[in-house]
């Protein structure tokens, strides 16, 4: 995979070879697994949070996949495919679809998101979701990177989900459905390869909490990598 991506980059560079210098706005593709981890909660989840893109400086095609697989039980995930366009120095507007899976059930949304770097270096993403049954969802992710050393990095993370209506088959209900606060400490052996340990607290609210009660703090062990 890594080779294909590098080759793709080299190929598009060739197009500009006869130019007065290298580079320019080259096509690039990349994949990041921000989290690939084992969570020591009661469900014994395997959790992933990944994204990737192919594109140029201003226009990109993004995918996001976040989900979990309990030790006993079916996987649930949120998967998005979006066109992303830079609209401000630090901000991209993204539009596309989300395909959520909860066991044998699924749900498709239209997505409109804002993604970028907020002042004070908060990596931020807010996505509005619209479904044809009139439900509206909001998913906010925020992350900060605090360098303990040049390679030892602490990442606090904040996630909030909210919905306008109940979606019983998917397991989420109206109002604020879930809040997750975590912090992970990784060591970058290389920029692209960093194992980590972390702690996290997750709580469900409202109807979501009646569907599946959750109020738990737990430890995580995982790997962050990209190429």
């Amino acid at each position, binding site marked *: 995979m890594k080779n294909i991506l*590098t080759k793709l*980059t*080299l190929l598009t*560079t*060739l197009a*500009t*070879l*006869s*130019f*007065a*210098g*290298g*580079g*320019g*706005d*080259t096509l*690039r593709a*990349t994949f990041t697994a921000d989290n690939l981890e084992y969570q020591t909660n009661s469900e014994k989840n395997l959790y992933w949070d990944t994204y990737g893109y192919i594109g140029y*400086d*201003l226009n990109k095609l993004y995918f996001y996949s976040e989900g979990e697989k309990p030790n006993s039980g079916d996987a649930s995930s949120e998967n998005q495919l979006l066109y992303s366009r*830079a*609209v*401000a*120095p*630090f901000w991209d507007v993204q539009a596309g679809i989300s395909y959520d899976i909860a066991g044998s059930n699924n749900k498709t949304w239209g997505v409109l998101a804002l993604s970028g*770097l907020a*002042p*004070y*270096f908060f990596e931020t993403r807010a996505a509005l979701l619209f479904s044809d049954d009139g439900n509206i969802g909001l998913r906010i992710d925020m992350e900060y990177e*605090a*360098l*303990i*050393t*040049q*390679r030892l990095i*602490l990442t606090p993370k904040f996630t909030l989900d909210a919905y306008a209506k109940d979606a019983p088959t998917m397991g989420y209900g109206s109002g604020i459905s879930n809040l997750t606060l975590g912090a992970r400490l990784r060591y970058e052996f290389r*920029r692209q390869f960093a194992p980590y340990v972390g702690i996290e607290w997750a709580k469900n609210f409202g109807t979501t909490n009646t569907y599946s009660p959750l109020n738990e703090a737990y430890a995580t062990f995982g790997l962050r990598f*990209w190429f």
Partner: protein
Amino acid sequence: MKHNKHSLSRRTFVKGVVASGAMLYGINLNASTDTVKKRKKTEELSGTVFNLSIDKTLVNVTGKPSYATAVNAMLQGPTLRWREGDTITLHVTNNLNESASIHWHGIILPYQMDGVPGISYDGIAPGETFTYTFTVRQSGTFWYHSHSAFQEQTGVYGAIVIEPKEKDPYEYDKDYVVLLSDYSDEKPAAIYRKLKLFPDYYNFNRRTVGDFFWEVKDKGFVEAFKARQMWNKMRMSDRDLSDVTAYTYTFLMNGQNPATRFRALFQNGEKVRLRFINAAAMTFFDVRIPGLTMKVVAADGNNIQPVDVDEFRIGVAETYDVIVEPENDKAYAIFAQSIARKGYALGNLSTDANILAEVPQMDPPQALTMLDMGMSKDMAQMKSMDMAKKQSMPSLQKPIPLTKLPIRWDVGTTMRAMNPQYRLDDPGVGLRNNGRKVLTYADLRSLRSTKEDRYPDREIVLHLTGNMERYMWSINGIPYHEAAPLEFHYGERLRITYINDTMMNHPMHLHGLWSDLETGDENHLVRKHTIISQPGSKISFRVTVDAKGAWAYHCHLLYHMTDMFRKVVVD
């Protein structure tokens, strides 16, 4: 002083420590085809007809074999010695399997001979030979390099020394080229991709939580927070000194890494001229020879009024000639530390090649200041420099018309210098108040008088712009591929002002025409081909538009080059 011992191994961050001299010039590689050459020792070629080839060449710079693109299989390429007034013919054969080129940096010549693909010619196709021919109308220290893709970083560069028609005004007994460069085993396209994905990839000098707590301890929470506030709000780093660092680069002096060390010899009592050339792809160097005062006698190939310094910064593509008078039987380190202070190029000046000087300690990296962000706030802090500044602040005696150029402030620009200042006597980040006499642009005075030079007819302002978060670079917010050519009119005298709206130094290079830098002394404007524009600053120079054709105009940092670029058309 150490005798024939490498004292470097504990500095593991300095690459190129393991390569021995034996490894430098010959190793066997199983995958040798006849199109791959083995590295040869750099030679000097002189005369009027030159045969050069660009070859895929097996080298070992870092302790690992890798492929360079080398001229005549030499890394660095052969030093060309020309004579002022001669007509030179250069047959350049491209043995690579991609288009290549050679550009004669700083040489005033017909534009068809300038060697920039897409502007002055088509480049040299694989297997083809292009013949350059032109008459040499200048003398001094220059260099050549590829202007195709990223070939410069992988080895297509070398020195040019032009002997003057009339005797040089300065006395010296020995004459050495000291060419600085940066080499990586990583493919340039891979480096560029990493910068696009993660601009901080090579920066291991980022701010830590600890740094903040030290500041809190130092000046209290509120003050420390305030000091960070501006940077945090703007989402900018004051530790962003160099995009690509010693993390991947090995710094070379005349093709030698710090372990094998370039060695210049002198005999007792001799004066030595050192011709410093920064042929690096991405690295600014701060040069000193501990124990010696350097008399700077030329800048970018042109003689200047001599100035004695302990240290000078050399931007990518600049050249400085210095004369030193080493003491009998001593050894000196020629020490060129990178601006990011994570590595250095190293040479040795001694009477005996086996006597090696002690390697100096690198300075700690300094952070950028509000001044480098183009904020006026720090002007108060810089009061000590203010008096000198006033004297060197260039100003026009009478106003000239300003030609407005298209400008765009959008996703490609993260910063605007709100109050950019002329900072000619500012040695720049990392060199401020270090206790040494550091060369600044305010010290440069041309040897020739510029009293009679024409007053400028008009002015243009170029904003050097970028978005470090997305690793985008541009001029006036417009990248090269979207920009109309700049129009210069044949016969006019132009004043150009840079405003640097980024946090980085940009060594700006105008092809084909001289840039007369305003240093504050109208009578001795210094003639350069490459001008460093400091972060958040303003700087002006004048150009006599005396050569027709199409010229390249760009930042000389390899990974800024394509976008921070303009085609200039002179008609």
